[in-house]
């Protein structure tokens, strides 16, 4: 039975990088903009976590992720009337805050549901890369078969690092309602696809492990 720790045990100015990292990400710190993620992105990341680590948080052998950091970025969508008849077209923009220097991008993917069962029929969806200017969009196809219904499309080549080092990615989430049209109201709106950044954090934690001095035989 441990006495409850003080409400905010973190020191005012945390010295250790881990505490700094946690302090920076702590809610209530300046810049905490939107409430925590929820719904499908959270469920997806919890499944990803369970595949990568055991109940005590120890990374599983073989590291199924192939890296030590994965960041989920939600879309800031715009355009509020995506439905036109059977068609759903939702422009999505992913704003990439400048990543911490120690985090090197290995690859980026967008995760979405290519097919959704509805009360009446199905929703078939795809992702289209919005090209600059008048060039036609590029239809993006997933590299592997969907896993648990989720499809993952590699968008690494399309990440645009803006001049303000703010990266961004513009997509269109396009769906068509297949099957008998339901009632008058538009069918359920599919959840927004989300961006996954697979990063290699070269510091990954408290401090780079010091090389153990070679122990001489006594």
């Amino acid at each position, binding site marked *: 039975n441990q006495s409850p720790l003080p409400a905010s045990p973190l020191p005012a100015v945390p010295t250790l990088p*881990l505490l700094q990292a946690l302090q920076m990400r702590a809610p209530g710190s300046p810049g905490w903009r939107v409430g925590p993620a929820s719904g499908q992105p959270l469920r997806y990341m919890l499944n990803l976590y369970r595949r990568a680590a055991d109940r005590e948080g120890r990374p599983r052998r073989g590291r199924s992720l192939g890296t030590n950091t994965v*960041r989920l970025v939600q879309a800031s969508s715009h355009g509020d009337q995506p439905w036109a008849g059977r068609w759903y077209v939702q422009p999505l923009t992913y704003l990439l805050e400048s990543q911490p220097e120690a985090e090197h991008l290995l690859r980026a993917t967008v995760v979405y549901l290519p097919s959704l069962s509805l009360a009446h029929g199905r929703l078939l969806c795809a992702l289209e890369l919005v090209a600059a200017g008048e060039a036609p969009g590029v239809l993006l196809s997933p590299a592997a078969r969907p896993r648990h219904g989720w499809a993952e499309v590699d968008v690494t080549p399309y990440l645009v690092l803006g001049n303000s080092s703010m990266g961004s990615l513009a997509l269109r989430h396009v769906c068509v309602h297949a099957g008998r049209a339901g009632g008058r109201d538009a069918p359920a709106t599919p959840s927004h696809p989300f961006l996954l950044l697979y990063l290699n954090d070269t510091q990954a934690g408290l401090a780079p492990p010091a090389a153990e001095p070679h122990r001489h035989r006594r």
Partner: protein
Amino acid sequence: DTGTLAYDLPNYLREQGGDKNDCSLHPFSVSFAQLGWDHWIIAPHRYNPRYCKGVCPHLLRYDYHAPNHAVVQSFVHQLVDASVPRPSCVPYRYSPISVLMIERNGGILYKEYENMIAESCTCR
């Protein structure tokens, strides 16, 4: 003087078995709620960082991975000047844990943090 060491053999042999107060690894499971970090750490709920506790024995057994300096310091404490402390019981090897956390902008981050679980102890 190997002669005195020979007299000390009984103690040495007893220490081989290790006294229960000897430097060793102890479990300590903690939740991120207890650390006050559960607002934004989603998983794991609990983790066991473990800790090292105990007295570094006079003769540091081979499995302590103690550097030569610790062996010398132990002799100094025992034979020369007791005000020089015995070596300290500290973690020797660590392993990482993976954490799932919420970021300020509502994003979700999976990250492996190094050196979060003590796997063995040493005397230094």
